[in-house]
């Protein structure tokens, strides 16, 4: 598989404290990558670095083999989409929230209308189109958030714990729908989660991040069944809970 995003020599610190230290990492075309690790491990920082939302320090980020500097940043960033744990919707209707990314790209009104209608349908929220975003339930808001990302038809989708604030039935339903969407669109995806079940269900490859370092990387099932020494503590506790 070819590399879509590559990062090299990433050393991010807050003062003296190292937050992320990754000599080299490749995100492959078409994969659904899981990122697991304890709180404060640097998962969100890794996501921000890959998504060009935080400066890579002295390191480099390559997209399709080409180094992304300041000049290219916006252009490449527009090929990505991001959804975080908090839905962070704008103070407007569901329709306009989903349309925002296309509006920022100056797409035609007709195209926007068609695509919004399509993605409302996919995420089963057509009936909410006119509703104000502040009056949605947590699950509905997260659906809007994900539709707002998917409408951009991103080459890479970044998800930072998008389901972790949802109650169980809501989470399960959305997780199923989201897996379907990602499979149908064949979108390369980076998925951060605390939750072993989500990771197992959704991802093909998994990296374990601890103390800012990638401790293990491999096919999800393999990493979960035979964690190496460094990752064992973290995975082990999960397995214990599930056994």
């Amino acid at each position, binding site marked *: 598989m070819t590399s879509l995003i590559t990062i090299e020599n990433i050393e991010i610190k807050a003062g003296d404290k190292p937050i992320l230290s990754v000599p080299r990492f490749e995100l492959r075309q078409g994969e659904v990558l899981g990122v697991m690790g304890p709180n404060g491990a640097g998962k969100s920082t890794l996501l921000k670095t890959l998504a060009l939302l935080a400066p890579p320090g002295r390191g480099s980020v390559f997209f399709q083999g080409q180094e992304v500097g300041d000049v290219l940043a916006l252009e490449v960033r*527009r090929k990505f989409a991001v959804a975080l744990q908090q839905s*962070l919707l*704008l*103070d407007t209707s569901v329709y306009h929230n989903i349309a925002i*990314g296309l509006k*920022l790209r100056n797409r035609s009104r007709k195209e926007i209308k068609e695509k919004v209608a399509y993605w409302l349908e996919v995420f089963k929220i057509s009936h909410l189109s006119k509703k104000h975003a502040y*009056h949605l339930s947590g699950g509905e808001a997260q659906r809007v958030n994900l539709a*707002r990302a998917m409408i951009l038809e991103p080459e890479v989708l*970044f998800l930072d714990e998008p389901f972790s604030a949802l109650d169980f039935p809501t989470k399960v339903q959305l997780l199923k729908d989201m897996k379907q969407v990602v499979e149908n669109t064949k979108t390369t995806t980076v998925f951060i989660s605390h939750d072993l079940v989500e990771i197992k269900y959704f991802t093909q490859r998994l990296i374990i991040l601890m103390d800012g370092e990638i401790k293990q990387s491999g096919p999800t099932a393999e990493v979960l069944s035979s964690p190496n020494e460094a990752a064992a503590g973290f995975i082990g506790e999960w397995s214990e809970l599930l056994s």
Partner: protein
Amino acid sequence: MELLLQGLRKAIEMILSGDPVILEITWRTLKVSLTAIMISTLIGLPAGMMLGLIKFPGRKLILTLINIGMGLPPVVAGLWITLLLWRSGPLSDFELLYTPTAIIIAQTLVSLPIVTGLTATAFQQINEKLIMQIKALGATKIQLVLILLKESRLAILAGIIAGFGRVIAEVGAAMMVGGNISGETRILTTSIVMEVSKGNFDIALALSFILMTIAFLITFCLTYLQQRKRSQ
């Protein structure tokens, strides 16, 4: 009570009869106050935005000074401007003292800290993750600023409304730097003070009704702008 009714009757009479002096004073009041709040907004909005969003050394100090400025007594502002524009003052060449421009300067000085300070507060409160999310949606820097402005419109307009309230109510500075000259720098507040001192309570009341109407109408428009499309 009778005095109030009399004043109201007088006000209606004066307005209906199109009393040229009243019209002129009202028009000048509107022109001066709206110009002042417009200048305050044009400067205070971008300044407040930068102060709220960008962290730089000295920012806290500036924010503190602005907060102090919000409580700046208009009379003090008037005094400073008078001293600056005075015959022997550093800006005397412009010959602005006792002109409507001087009143605009004074009113801008007292409303600018309010608009700037409240805008800065609004932007300081913006969730950093929201900024990141908007960038992630593909916004350019300018698009980001426009979205944030829209997101903060409630608080920003609150600042403008508060600033306008101060400007339209202000009398001490306008008196001092404008001089309440008939046909030149007389505005509603200064003429009310004058009429009261002359014992013309009916005219003073009439003027006060006009002043209140203007203040109410403009505040109403701003509030409408602030609150529209918030329902559902």
